[in-house]
């Protein structure tokens, strides 16, 4: 396909490594935009979707990614049989994955998937898969991005994505809601999620009486054990002959929606959930810190800001006033869930804040096929400004990362940095040190920290907070 006149050929024209699974559609990301090459069959599915009420309405509501047909020359070998058409998608500010989301986010993404599926079935279409990787976020609002997942529905086809919905949405949510078992390690451990047999093995006898478990877990596991080796083609044909119809799929989808909507995670009281309101932080300190962060963000107007150890998201919101987008990260799931719930009800600038569960000492690695399918966190977009407030003492003392290494890592990550150093006289630092043998961590020292910082950063501003035990720095990475 030749590019239209005036359309420049983008750089780096190769398929996104994570989009290989669907033979009818490949995603291409360039500096200019996000594109999707379609096979002939994929193109016909797109034409049906584009002409549907669903598409116009859901794009207008922001629940479906804005998409239009475009002209773009793509390599012949991108799809078997060549590309019959190319779509251009709106770009999502930062790609995130379900093992970085909170319970509420995974649930909301699942509900969006089910809503779109129900609507699609009403217009003779279906979603060909049910993976949470089809959903991305604009702040705390989910958006369905996999346009290639919509296809024409054949009347007697079952819900092909049902099993995948269970393994990647329902079972992880049940683990958290019913057992308070965090789903992140499971989803990070397997891109395919939790199988029915695994879920049945983990949920207890008591859980067998909870909503959704008898059918979707216990029976599902039993059927899988019993029929796993049956021919899928034969079962499909049998279903067709027995009169399987779209109403059954819709009934299943609606029941699943009710089930997912009712799943609740009762937030545990962790050491962090009330941290932001801790009276230990003097009001004057807080005000000075807010002014310092606001001024740094205003000066730099970053496209992307990372707020590490965001807690209640106060400084993420302040940075968002002058940033295009902010990633608010914290290792504590309950804290991020609280933040997500708060952000959902807020307007600007909170709508530019994406909350994520990230443990900096164990961040999301490269995963999937060739380790390219789901890249590590920093490979998805480095920040121009990083906030590292009231965090370094936790990394250095609790998690044993040497101060010099924390600073070195920050220098590889970001150009601009606002960092707070609580001194050894700070009550929180004293508490953390008291838990360690002989009050070690000699490298946790203000003078040493400043030397490490100056090795790698040019320090623009330094401010001692009124309490006298915390010092703020604004700095820019050298070179």
């Amino acid at each position, binding site marked *: 396909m030749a590019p239209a006149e005036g359309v420049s050929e983008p750089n780096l024209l190769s398929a996104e490594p994570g989009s290989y*699974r*669907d*033979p*009818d559609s490949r995603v291409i990301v360039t500096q200019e935009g996000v594109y999707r090459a379609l096979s002939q069959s994929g193109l016909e599915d797109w034409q049906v979707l584009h002409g549907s009420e669903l598409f116009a309405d859901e794009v207008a509501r922001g629940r479906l990614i804005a998409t239009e047909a475009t002209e773009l020359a793509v390599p012949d070998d991108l799809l078997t049989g060549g590309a019959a058409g190319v779509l251009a998608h709106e770009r999502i500010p930062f790609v995130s994955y379900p093992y970085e989301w909170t319970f509420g986010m995974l649930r909301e993404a699942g509900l969006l998937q089910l809503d779109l599926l129900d609507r699609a079935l009403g217009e003779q279409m279906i979603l*060909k*898969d049910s*993976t949470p990787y089809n959903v991305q976020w604009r702040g705390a609002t989910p958006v369905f991005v996999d346009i290639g997942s919509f296809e024409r529905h*054949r009347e007697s*086809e*079952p*819900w*092909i*994505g*049902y*099993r*995948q919905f*269970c*393994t990647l949405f329902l079972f992880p949510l049940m683990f958290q809601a019913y057992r308070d078992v965090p789903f992140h390690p499971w989803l990070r451990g397997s891109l*395919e999620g939790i*199988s*029915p047999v695994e879920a049945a093995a983990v949920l207890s006898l008591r859980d067998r009486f909870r909503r959704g478990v008898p*059918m*979707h877990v216990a*029976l*599902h596991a*039993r*059927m*899988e*054990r*019993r*029929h*796993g*080796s*049956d*021919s*899928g*083609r*034969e*079962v*499909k*044909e*049998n*279903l*067709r*002959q*027995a*009169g*399987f*119809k779209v*109403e*059954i*799929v819709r*009934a*299943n989808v609606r*029941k699943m929606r009710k089930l997912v909507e009712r799943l609740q995670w009762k937030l545990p009281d962790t050491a962090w959930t009330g941290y932001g309101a801790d009276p230990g932080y003097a009001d004057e300190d807080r005000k000075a810190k807010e002014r310092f962060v606001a001024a740094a963000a205003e000066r730099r107007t970053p496209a992307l800001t990372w707020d590490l150890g965001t807690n209640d998201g106060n400084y993420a919101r302040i940075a968002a006033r002058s940033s295009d987008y902010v990633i608010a990260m914290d290792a504590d799931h309950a804290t991020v869930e609280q933040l997500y719930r708060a952000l959902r009800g807020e307007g600007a600038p909170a709508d530019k804040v994406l909350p994520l569960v990230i443990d900096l000492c164990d961040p999301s690695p490269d995963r999937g096929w060739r380790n390219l399918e789901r890249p590590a966190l920093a490979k998805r977009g480095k920040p121009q400004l990083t906030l590292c407030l009231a965090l370094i003492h936790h990394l250095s003392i609790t998690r044993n990362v040497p101060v010099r290494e924390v600073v070195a890592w920050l220098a590889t990550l970001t150009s601009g940095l606002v960092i707070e150093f609580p001194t050894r006289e700070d009550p929180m630092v004293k508490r953390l040190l008291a838990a360690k043998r002989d009050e070690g961590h000699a490298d946790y020292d203000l003078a040493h920290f400043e030397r490490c910082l100056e090795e790698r950063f040019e320090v623009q501003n330094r401010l001692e907070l009124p309490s006298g035990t915390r010092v703020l720095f604004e700095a820019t990475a050298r070179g």
Partner: protein
Amino acid sequence: MLYTTILAYLDPGTGSMLVQLLVGGVAAAGVALKLYWHRFLRLLRIRKDDVPPSERPTRAEAGDGPG
């Protein structure tokens, strides 16, 4: 055969397809009864298999996982 052309890229899992009949309410119950009635007849050899054994995929081809 028509159905060979519409196999999805995602393996729905045979057990998972059958669960949908048991979750799918009244409309599904009729289909479930019919399906199992057909299977029952096949068991009694009153009705022939729908797909000749030679055309059936092997266990490895059938698979059971997504993607």
